[in-house]
């Protein structure tokens, strides 16, 4: 058996009296498409923030490729190959699409204490950026300023930027948030294409997408893992049905 790429061990985060992550333990083997679902306030985004390094846990450890990254700053994790996308698009809105992605490429091609050469003319930065844009279907929109793009395009660009860092693992925080049905179909196509090419941890509200894509699913309720397994097992799980799927109808987007 191959050792897991990401090992989360009893990870705990409390905000005041609220336990957002309650001794979460989870192993994700390389190549797996793993989805995390849960009702609003289950601590899904907290989990991404913990893994990305934006918040520090009180207890527990995170191992990536066997090395402990629990206390590593955000940028170091990105360097190791752990890339994330944001639930609320976090882009460089006054840059064009390709400039956004090229910057992500640049972060992983040596240091940037280079003061003279025009970085926009560096093929070594532009070519991979163009490839990443093509992968999410934005090739034709490369030179459009981000603040003039649609919401759906922003979501795709989020993914392209994560891809441009040549990650070993992607953390996707609700890539379909706020999308219309058509845009969602496109995003599912993008994700399906990525499946298998790299390890993916997806957090998502869209149940159809999750069950269509995931190899395994973990269900989070009040920061605690209540079930983890194959899609069919999750569908059949009594605790999940009661805690989550049962109330799906009433819960909207966050």
């Amino acid at each position, binding site marked *: 058996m191959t050792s897991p790429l990401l090992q989360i061990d009893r990870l705990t985060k409390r905000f005041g009296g609220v336990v957002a992550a309650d001794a979460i333990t989870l192993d994700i083997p390389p190549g797996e498409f793993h989805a995390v679902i849960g009702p609003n306030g289950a601590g899904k985004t907290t989990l991404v923030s913990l893994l990305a390094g934006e918040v520090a846990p009180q207890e527990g450890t995170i191992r990536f490729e066997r090395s402990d990254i629990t206390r590593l700053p955000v940028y170091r994790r990105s360097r190791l190959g752990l890339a994330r996308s944001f639930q609320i698009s976090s882009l460089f809105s006054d*840059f064009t699409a390709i*400039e956004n992605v090229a*910057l992500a490429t*640049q972060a992983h091609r040596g240091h940037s*204490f280079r003061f003279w050469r025009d970085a926009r003319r560096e093929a070594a930065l532009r070519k991979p950026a163009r490839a990443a844009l093509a992968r999410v279907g934005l090739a034709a929109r490369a030179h459009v300023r981000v603040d003039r793009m649609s919401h759906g395009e922003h979501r795709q660009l989020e993914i392209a*930027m994560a891809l441009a*860092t040549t990650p070993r693992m992607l953390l996707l925080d609700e890539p379909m948030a706020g999308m219309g049905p058509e845009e969602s179909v496109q995003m599912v196509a993008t994700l399906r294409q990525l499946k298998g090419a790299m390890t993916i941890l997806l957090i998502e509200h869209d149940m159809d997408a999750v069950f269509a894509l995931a190899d395994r699913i973990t269900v989070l309720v009040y920061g605690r893992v209540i079930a983890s397994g194959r899609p069919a097992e999750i569908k059949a799980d009594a605790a999940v049905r009661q805690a989550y799927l049962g109330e799906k109808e009433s819960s909207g987007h966050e």
Partner: protein
Amino acid sequence: MTASFDPPLEHAPASRLNGRTAFIVAMLAILALLPVYTTLTGDSFVMTLFSRVLILAIGAVSLNLIMGYGGMVSFGHAAYLGIGGYAVGILAKEGIGSGFVQWPVAIAVSALYALVVGALSLRTRGVYFIMITLAFAQMIYYVVIGLERYGGDDGLTIYQRSRFGGFIDLNNKTVFYYLCFVLLMASIYLVSRLVNSRFGLVIRGTRSNERRMRAIGFPTFRYKLVCFVIAGALCGLAGALLANHTSFISPALMHWTRSGDLIVMVVLGGLGSLFGPLIGTVAFLLLEEALSRVTEYPDMILGPVLLLVAIYLHGGIEGLLQWRRHD
């Protein structure tokens, strides 16, 4: 901090001739030919005034690098003018008159000061950053007031301008003017290379969205710090020039209102544009000069003018020049 200043990311300069390019070329031509006018008319006042414009424009270019491109609103930038000036003044008083020593010292001490201030202030943002840069500048201001040997509150007269062997004679006003002109052009060129390099894109990306920069793998702090130090060094050079220009330095050089003036020049000209700081400095100093002839309270008029610029002209004067229909 960045929300209120949002200059568009400037692309590699287009060679197309438009109103803005024409304006800048005309302005540079006038600046380049000013000494000819002085020679013809014997009116040296204009050249003296514009030497000052060129020097302060270097300071504004430096501030624009961190504020316009980097989103770091330093409210203590005049401190570098003072440090650069006092480096020259103190060395001159101690008998070291060579510019080859004075100017590198002015630049190095300014850079060192920027390193200390930056290391402490760049961990904060927004209003806290502004307050810390101001606090440091005030500290230096009072330190200088305490330097009895170097004139304290009264300032220090510099009896001899920096000497550069036989190469450049700063006592010649025309030579000094052209030196300032060349150094200003060099600093604008330096900034133009810098902001389009990898380093520059990191700085601009950080202004736009620092959280994302870290998420894609940039240790943003060290880039901001280096940018802060480069700007400090450049403004220290302006300080050395200023001391030579006036042959006199005093703590007033680094009074906090001088830092405010520099911010005004940059905002007036256009944040995050290459020639904006020069345009802003020309406009500010000419306005100040003109108003001081007609009224005892130039600020009464300068204030409202600025208010209008801040409200209606987001790209400053430079932005007005390149105004186009938005699609």
